[in-house]
């Protein structure tokens, strides 16, 4: 415990270094901005801005991106409430009660509740993170390649079991990402693999950032252009300091839902594939179930705004737990952060805590600070962000496109990659229109090389005996859990059918 406190203290000091504190402010602002723009969420912001962070050292870079992640969770609520369209998928549940409140002229109350709940959710989860991360990382030091591989199988299984998307399509998406990760020279035998059309450019492989920016930058913008058609209508919001102060009194009406959302969000967030969106929906559902007045939900109950907002912030921190301790990302956003860590020259995984303590604790310290900064910026700048929302898409779209193209070029110095990015963006858009989930592909291209290496290491070590994955207790447990998760949708379907049969 003492070690944790000392390290945390050092991390906090690090967070207050001028560059880092500037990064926190910049990240929170950028996050609030991408979060509140409809169609753009944390994952898009992190993907598009990652190349720019090569300007600064890794610790400052991850602090910026983590603050952005965080800020986006706050920002999502702004458009959910004032526009009635979620600023990001993580804020979908906030629309349910946020929109009715705005229609009743109580948008400022809803915005305030969202900010306060986000703050509590964020604080609870960062404390849980500080307590859980070091022991988990220490435990994970025992992992060999077998356990690593089993954990990754488990991560993909959660997408199949809990992702809620069409199962064959999810499997296709995962496998596509894993195969694309193998393009280029094989790390073990040195042979070139999957060099399409004999183009030498493929020998360097397809960078994860090319795929991530293609899907979350280009593809997402095309998707947003389609769904909004550039037209949005806004509710009037009256915000004055007097009203903001008065709104603090409402806190007693939603404090219970906020606690619930905070804890639930953290634990759901740690599961890969689950992440902030399901966490906020579950939190909304549970808060409604436990409420004394469930009928008022969906008609403008302030607790219905607080519950999902606390959960999505808590989940964003939660999803960093497996990323930092195990090297397995808990959400698409953390998958991109993990890929970024590899580019920065860090080795994600349990050793990160011992090899780069400054990086890890600087990040943790910054999360505490970012939480304060975001809530202050958020409340102070609500009027400004409402004006930002009125910004037409014909201005934002070309800027984002330019950032995507130049960002990819800046990471690899090749025009070839920008073409691949455009193709992937279009393909991602077309696939997404048919309900193919794209997040698993991004996660898979990040984890692909790690998963292949650990699988082959295990098999070389065991002389090709597949049983090596089942003979080690931790690995076996993960695989059993993975199997359970993969069969969960089938079991669910069978039970539903039986129930339907019994009722008929």
């Amino acid at each position, binding site marked *: 415990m003492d070690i944790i406190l000392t390290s945390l203290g050092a991390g906090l000091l690090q967070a207050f270094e001028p560059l880092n504190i500037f990064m926190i402010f910049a990240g929170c602002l950028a996050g609030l901005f991408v979060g509140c723009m409809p169609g753009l969420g944390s994952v898009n912001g992190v993907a598009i801005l990652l190349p720019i962070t090569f300007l600064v050292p890794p610790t400052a870079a991850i602090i910026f991106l983590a603050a952005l992640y965080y800020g986006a969770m706050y920002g999502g609520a702004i458009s959910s409430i004032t526009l009635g369209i979620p600023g990001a998928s993580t804020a979908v549940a906030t629309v349910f009660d946020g929109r009715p409140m705005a229609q009743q002229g109580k948008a400022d109350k809803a915005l305030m509740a969202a900010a306060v709940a986000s703050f509590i959710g964020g604080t609870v989860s960062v404390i849980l993170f500080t307590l859980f991360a070091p022991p988990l990382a220490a435990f994970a030091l025992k992992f060999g390649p077998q356990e690593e591989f089993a954990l990754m199988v488990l991560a993909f299984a959660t997408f199949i079991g809990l992702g809620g998307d069409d199962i*064959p399509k999810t499997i296709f998406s995962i*496998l596509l990402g894993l195969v694309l990760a193998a393009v280029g020279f094989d790390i073990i035998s040195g042979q070139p693999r999957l060099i399409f059309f004999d183009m030498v450019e493929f020998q360097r492989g397809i960078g994860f950032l090319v795929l991530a920016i293609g899907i979350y930058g280009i593809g997402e913008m095309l998707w947003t252009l389609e769904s909004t058609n550039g037209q949005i209508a806004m509710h009037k919001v009256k915000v004055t300091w007097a009203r903001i102060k008065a709104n603090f009194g409402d806190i007693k009406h939603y404090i219970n839902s906020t606690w619930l959302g905070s804890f639930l969000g953290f634990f759901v967030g740690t599961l890969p594939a689950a992440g902030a969106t399901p966490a906020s929906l579950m939190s909304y559902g549970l808060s409604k179930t436990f409420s004394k007045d469930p009928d008022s939900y969906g008609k403008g109950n302030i607790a219905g705004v607080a519950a999902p907002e606390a959960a999505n912030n808590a989940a964003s921190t939660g999803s960093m737990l497996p990323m930092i301790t195990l090297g397995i990302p808990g959400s698409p956003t953390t998958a991109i952060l993990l890929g970024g860590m590899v580019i920065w020259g860090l080795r994600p995984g349990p050793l990160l805590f011992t090899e780069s303590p400054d990086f890890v604790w600087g990040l943790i310290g910054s999360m505490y600070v970012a939480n304060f900064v975001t809530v202050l910026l958020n409340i102070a700048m609500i009027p400004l962000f409402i004006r930002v929302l009125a910004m037409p898409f014909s201005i934002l779209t070309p800027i984002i496109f330019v950032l995507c193209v130049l960002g990819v070029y800046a990471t690899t110095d090749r025009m070839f990659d920008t073409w691949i990015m455009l193709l992937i963006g279009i393909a991602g858009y077309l696939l997404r229109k048919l*309900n193919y989930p794209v997040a698993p592909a991004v996660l898979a291209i990040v984890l692909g090389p790690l998963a292949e290496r650990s699988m082959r290491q295990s098999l070389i070590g065991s002389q090709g005996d597949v049983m090596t994955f089942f003979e080690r207790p931790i690995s076996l447990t993960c695989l059993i859990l993975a199997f359970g998760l993969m069969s969960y949708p089938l079991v669910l379907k069978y039970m539903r059918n039986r129930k339907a049969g019994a009722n008929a």
Partner: protein
Amino acid sequence: MTVRTAELLMGIATLLVSLGLMLNVHLDGLTIGWVEGRGPGAGMWPFWLSLGMALAALATIVRWFMGATPESRSTDPYISQETMFIVGVSVVALFAFLLLMTIIGTYLALVLFMFFYVRIIGRHGWAMTSALVIGTPVFVYLLFEVALTKYLPKGWPIFEEGFLVIDNLRYEWFY
């Protein structure tokens, strides 16, 4: 094209892609099984996973015939006329942007791209248009070339030489 048709076509396309990947591994002569004394072959991972992709694609096609997915029952247009316009225009503009980057260089391409989007598509006033048309290349230059020290594509030599004047000025004045 309806969503229903699109789903079938996409199922077939994904199946072909998967088979193509398997063929690619095979034609490269990579070992898909165990190499005696060496461990798993280089082709093992991509080959068997591509097979999995093919099976998943096949499952989607089978489910299409059974009408199991909502998409396979939907007769809505896959891409509506309005969407076709806005998305099509964006894709063509991006395509042109990338092409122009290699011919006339990043900065001139940026000017044209921003002008097209802001003035012609967005129909914004001249003040907004000129701010973005001039501001974006300046910002990009400062961010990528000065701060990140990245040499962005300057196009064919004739355009590149023209642009070097700016770089020369920068080095004369600031270094």
